[in-house]
């Protein structure tokens, strides 16, 4: 078998003919496109330029959609021989079962510490730590704010920006209309590929999906009320007719094209929405913390959905020292500021004090305000991906009218409870 293996490998090498040339090292980062944008963006500058120079390396970014990037990274990290140096991971696609695929960063951190690691909240590190194995350095938090299109508001004669969720609901209905030329406008849009979009709406009603101590609570009256609202919105056309297929990518296009008036999305999307090159409404998007139902009390804000992207090193990465030095570089306080200017949600609080960030990322004050109370979509566990899919399946059933919201949420309990850790 060994000779066949060697033969095959030789043949493979011959055929593979990698494009490596000029003695330059090639480093591969696998991530979502947004990371490439905030790491290398022109506005704040390229965080990797100095590092590439110093190490005589070129960086290749392989970018995919949110779900696809995890699918790919895990598959890649499971191989005997890997080619990915750094991977970006989102906590809700993680879990103890994938932890062995990645390098334990503890020893690396001890030997060659990050710059000012205390600035990064321990809870963000915790989101990427499984059974004591820390696999990711937090890089980006995607914390949701509430966006609206001022131009469309004006067109419809809406002057007040909603400050309670009741007002959002009212405005959403008002903003749902058909223009003279037949083009239709939806009042609200959000993503449906996983619960991160609708979580805000459920929490605005005081509900939740899975609590930190792994209890399923989405069949409580608050969450059911939120799902009922979603169903009613969908029926009335407040939500776009094709929203069932929306991933975050489609929400962006819809908002940029002005086909919907409001959404809840990461604060950093402010850049995409107001970008004259991509958006039909540059400079017309406002953003604020998402307000909750006024009857809930408290500070009146929804505990915003957040998620934490972290940089990890696949177990099979070819040169882990090199990977680590790149991670350190990208995560440095200076580069955190650069990325924040490019639209990243900075994990270091000091970035919010930087004058450039204040000037170029005008939403950062609002973002900073909601950060202390922000919540993950679900706490990480092995079957989280499946539980989220089941949940979305039942929510969509309710929205399509195939089941009553209360019944659907109850059905979800029956299917999700067996998956929860005890």
């Amino acid at each position: 078998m060994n000779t066949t293996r060697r033969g095959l490998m030789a043949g493979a090498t011959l055929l593979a003919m990698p494009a490596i040339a000029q003695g330059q090292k090639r480093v591969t980062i696998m991530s979502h496109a947004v990371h490439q944008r905030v790491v290398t963006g022109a506005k704040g500058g390229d965080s990797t330029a100095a590092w590439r120079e110093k190490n005589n390396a070129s960086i290749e970014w392989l970018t995919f959609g949110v779900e696809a990037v995890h699918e790919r990274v895990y598959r890649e990290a499971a191989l005997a021989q890997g080619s990915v140096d750094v991977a970006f991971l989102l906590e809700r696609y993680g879990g103890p079962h994938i932890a062995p695929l990645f390098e334990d960063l503890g020893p690396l951190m001890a030997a060659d510490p990050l710059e000012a690691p205390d600035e990064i909240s321990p809870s963000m590190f915790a989101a990427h730590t499984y059974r004591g194995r820390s696999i990711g350095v937090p890089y980006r938090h995607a914390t949701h704010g509430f966006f609206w299109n001022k131009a469309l508001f004006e067109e419809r004669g809406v002057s007040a920006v909603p400050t309670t969720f009741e007002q959002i609901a009212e405005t959403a209905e008002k903003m749902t209309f058909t223009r003279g030329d037949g083009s239709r406008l939806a009042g609200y849009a959000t993503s449906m590929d996983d619960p991160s979009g609708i979580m805000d709406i459920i929490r605005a009603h005081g509900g939740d999906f899975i609590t930190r101590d792994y209890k399923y609570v989405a069949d409580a009256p608050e969450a059911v009320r939120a799902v009922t609202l979603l169903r009613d919105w969908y029926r009335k056309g407040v939500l776009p007719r094709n929203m069932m297929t929306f991933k975050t990518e489609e929400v962006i296009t819809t908002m940029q094209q002005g086909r919907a008036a409001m959404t809840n999305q990461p604060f950093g999307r402010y850049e995409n929405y107001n970008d004259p090159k991509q958006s039909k409404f540059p400079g017309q998007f406002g953003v604020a913390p998402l307000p909750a139902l006024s009857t809930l009390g408290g500070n009146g804000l929804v505990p915003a959905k957040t998620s934490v992207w972290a940089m990890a090193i696949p177990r099979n990465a070819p040169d882990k020292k090199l990977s680590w030095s790149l991670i350190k570089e990208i995560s440095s306080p200076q580069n955190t500021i650069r990325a924040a200017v490019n639209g990243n949600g900075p994990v270091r609080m000091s970035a919010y004090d930087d004058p450039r960030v204040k000037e170029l990322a005008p939403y950062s004050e609002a973002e900073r305000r909601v950060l202390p109370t922000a919540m993950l979509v679900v706490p990480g566990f092995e079957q989280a991906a499946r539980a989220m899919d089941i949940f979305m399946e039942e929510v969509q059933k309710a929205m399509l009218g195939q089941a009553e919201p209360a019944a659907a949420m109850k059905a979800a309990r029956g299917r999700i409870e067996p998956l929860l850790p005890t």
Partner: protein
Amino acid sequence: MKRARRSELALLAPAHMLLLAFIVLPAIYVGWMSLTKTSFEGSAAFVGFANYATLFGDAVFWRAAWNTFWVVNAVVYGEMLLGLGLALLAAGWMPWRRVLIACLIAPYAINEVSAVAMWRYVLEPDVGMVSWLLVRIGIGQLDWTADPTDALTLAAILSIWTHTPFTFLILYAALRAVPQELTEAAVVDGARGWAVFRHVLLPSIMPALLVALLFRYIIAMRIFAEIWLLTEGGPARLTEVLAVYLYRTAFRYHEFGLASATGLTMMLLSLAIAAPYLVHVYRRMFRHA
């Protein structure tokens, strides 16, 4: 016929080695995997038929099986009728026959991903030009992003569109072996034509028709990219087919045991569909042997 010597038999080896290495052994291994619980760490624990119990207890699996069933039937028979009609048309009187045939088989060259992009482009709700036209003339658009039935219908149309050239080619080739006057009569001569078609043409192209039908059944069962790239099986996993179910189980939930059980089920289903044909081939081959 002669018996082959060893040196001649050796000529068969490469072909069979490929099949053995990449299809037969993996298929056997899938059988074993379906009896274990495996994940990334690579340790496989024997669990007996637990994966099958999970699989057959999962409503989503049955939904996927049902969707596969009806999409496959719609595709295979839709394509058969269309392919036969086109073959009759092309085999009869036709100026620029070559050009017509070239046009008809063009979709065969299109990859599934581009095909999805093409059909999405013309059928995108509200903005696609065919959607626009359909609304304009009052038919109403195909609501494939929201309505599971419409989504599956679009997937079926797509599949028919890409694969009709295959069926068409086989039937056209078969028709060419029949005297052209008969083909001609079947198309033009009304009642007599029908009789000619029914009693002369159909029987003579029947073997080809069955082969085309079978191959399309087998291949249609694998339908994946059409659904995956249109809806990923949504909304509410209502448009999933077996291959999508398998892919999701394996590469999203990382449950390779359960995915293998799905795979083996698909395999047995394919063989069951093919069984009558295989028996037929077997008989004929061994009769000649």
